[in-house]
């Protein structure tokens, strides 16, 4: 077998790689990454030993060991010396709870951007296009700050991809019609990307516009959005409602949701025109049964395990999420993209917050 150079992945068609590539080349990248992290991150090495996965030789993707994504809330895990960590991504986290801390070095951060660029290129063309960010420039306030939230990380990533960029919201997260009009004038009828955090888009763009008579013509745009779905679910806003509302206020109809996590920034699972989330050449996904973590078949609900070829500075290439979903198929989505396509239903139902340490909320045990 010819060994694939990691860098070659960036020149592939992201949604053009099928089963056979995934089961050989992608698997080999996973093998190499697992060995790299086992060599470089002592805590990760101890986890592998404890799981009896000492000198792994993977026959299939399901053999790749996984760590729970939340482990990054409990431990600071790095596969590079501390002086090479250039930024730390911090998850939004639940209020008051611990936050994930993801250690990035220059090269992993760069790979994340490259992967994002390749993936979005499928929608907007390989050539750099303008980006309208549906967020506030505050998210970029201090680019030298080494601690970045997931939302800011997304905005920064997308805004660096663009030929030029504008922010649709002002510093107070209020719509900035002047900025939007100026952006549209500059694009001059060309295609452009529109990016935002789902909950921010809904709460700060769609809802205010629905309440007013103001409308924008963003019909030339391609909207890519993800994250903060909990806010929408709480308000009972489903995907169809979201799409209809976006179209009503902006004329935007090319809308792609994505699924991704701050622990694997850059390798996003993008929604195709059929409304299915897809793996790319940078990523893969498995669904596992709660009972014993065996792998679910297509159509069977399970816990999502996400894989990414990007994380080199921290052992996050194979993570067990707290999200529930279902594999729909592989390489045969009517949209024409290769790879697995699937659905994510949302977060697993929380366990009762009772424990030694809990009189209602906190508490104790007898």
């Amino acid at each position: 077998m010819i060994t694939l150079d990691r860098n070659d992945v960036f020149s592939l068609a992201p949604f053009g790689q099928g089963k056979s590539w995934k089961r050989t080349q992608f698997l080999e990248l996973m093998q190499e990454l697992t060995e790299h992290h086992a060599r470089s991150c002592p805590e990760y090495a101890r986890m592998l030993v404890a799981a009896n996965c000492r000198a792994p030789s993977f026959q299939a993707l399901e053999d790749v060991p996984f760590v729970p994504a939340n482990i990054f809330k409990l431990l600071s895990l790095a596969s590079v010396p501390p002086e090479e960590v250039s930024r730390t991504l911090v998850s939004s986290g639940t209020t008051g709870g611990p936050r994930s801390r993801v250690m990035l070095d220059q090269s992993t951060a760069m790979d994340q951007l490259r992967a994002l660029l390749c993936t979005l290129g499928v929608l907007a063309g390989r050539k750099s296009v303008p980006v309208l960010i549906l967020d506030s420039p505050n998210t970029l306030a201090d680019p030298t700050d080494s601690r970045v939230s997931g939302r800011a990380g997304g905005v920064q990533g997308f805004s660096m991809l663009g030929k030029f960029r504008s922010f649709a919201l002002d510093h107070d997260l209020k719509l900035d019609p002047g900025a939007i009009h100026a952006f549209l004038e500059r694009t001059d009828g060309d295609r452009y990307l529109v990016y935002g955090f789902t909950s921010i888009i809904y709460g700060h763009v769609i809802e205010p516009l629905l309440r007013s008579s103001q409308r924008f013509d963003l019909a030339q745009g391609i909207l890519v959005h993800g994250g903060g779905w909990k806010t929408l679910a709480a308000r009972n806003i489903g995907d169809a409602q979201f799409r209809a509302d976006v179209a009503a206020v902006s004329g935007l109809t090319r809308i792609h949701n994505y699924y991704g996590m701050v622990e694997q920034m850059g390798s996003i699972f993008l929604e195709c025109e059929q409304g299915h989330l897809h793996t790319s050449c940078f990523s893969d996904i498995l669904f596992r049964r709660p009972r014993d973590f065996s792998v679910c078949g297509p159509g069977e609900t399970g816990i999502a395990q996400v894989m990414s070829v990007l994380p080199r500075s921290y052992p996050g290439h194979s993570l067990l999420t707290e999200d529930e979903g279902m594999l729909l198929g592989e390489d045969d989505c009517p949209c024409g993209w290769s790879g697995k396509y699937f659905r994510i239903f949302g977060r697993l139902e929380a366990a009762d917050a009772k424990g030694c340490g809990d009189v209602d909320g906190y508490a104790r045990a007898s």
Partner: protein
Amino acid sequence: MLTATPEQADVQILVGPARLESIKAVPPRPSVDPEVLALLSRWARQLLSEPEVMTYPDVMAFASWCRTVPGLAAAPEGTCRMGRGLVFHIAPSNVPTMFAFSLVAGLLAGNANVVRLPSGGDRRVDLLCETLSQVLSEPEFEAFRDAICLLRYAREVSDVTSRLSRLCDVRVIWGGDTTINAIRTHAIPAHASDLVFADRSSAALIHADAWLSADSKDQTLRGFYNDTYLYDQNACSAPRAVIWCGEAVEEAQADFWSRLENLLAEQFVLKPIAAVNKLEFAMQIAATVPNTRMHSTSNLAVRTWVPEISEHVFQGNPGHGCFVETQVTEIDQLFASLPRRIQTLSYFGLDPQQIRQCLIKARARGVDRVVPIGKTLDFSLIWDGHDIIGTLSRTIRID
């Protein structure tokens, strides 16, 4: 000073007087007063007559405990015991019936009692309150109507906590540590005292060879299941560590856990999130404690083998069937190293007298309770190292 106003809208009184002034005015009784025993026995009878109670083994267990009240110690010679006055109980939510045991201890000691119930509704709590209300409405128990008040209010309504704290003579706080610290910010009278039950963890000690030759395996396993899985391993007394001694440890382990797996497959419903949380715990231990082994056969019982038991291996255990395991060659050495946090040691295949001697000889810091496997949830008036009746009463010396 009597300004507590449970009449306010956010306080819900389930049992008791409409005004707290009347409860403060109730004089103490002698400890273990026959009238109290009559009340308890009547309450138990009422509970056992409710068909719905049969569906809750823990309420049943409370009722049968109430009928006989085991573990009552007599006052030391030359003394008599009386209540201290008013006891304010902050009940825990992880074991719904706990408030009732706490109340009974307060009554037996001879006190009037105000109990703050857990705010989350639970049918078992309601059943206990309804039956007690019914019994108190009988003319025979009229005298107790002002002496018992069960109420519920949101944790955030701290002025109620503050007022009740100023009224009481003893405050009983069933933790966690966070709750204890929060409640302690409310002053109690100078003469009053707190009886606190802080966060604790528990362990089981099994003699491997005794296990392999035992003929009561099924019964013991059912007991272990009740100890752990009945409250999702959230009771402080539920073992989160399993310690093996003896020779054929590996064989005994294999046998014990595979039998438990079979029982779990029939009886236990695993929440998917619990599978993730348990893996998280195991991996965290693996990452931070060298020579850890994860060796579960399924996610029903997640087991993490550690070289030794320390405070650290109890941190962050999510319950729902999540265990650390280890092996010791000498039990003496085990007792010397068990952390202070260990509350209940449940055992199988060992002689309690031998455990007693080891505890003393090793000058153990941890372990406040030693019971056979299957008995960890049995409430006793000696708890967490406290003689509860003694603490909630005045011992009056008469020469």
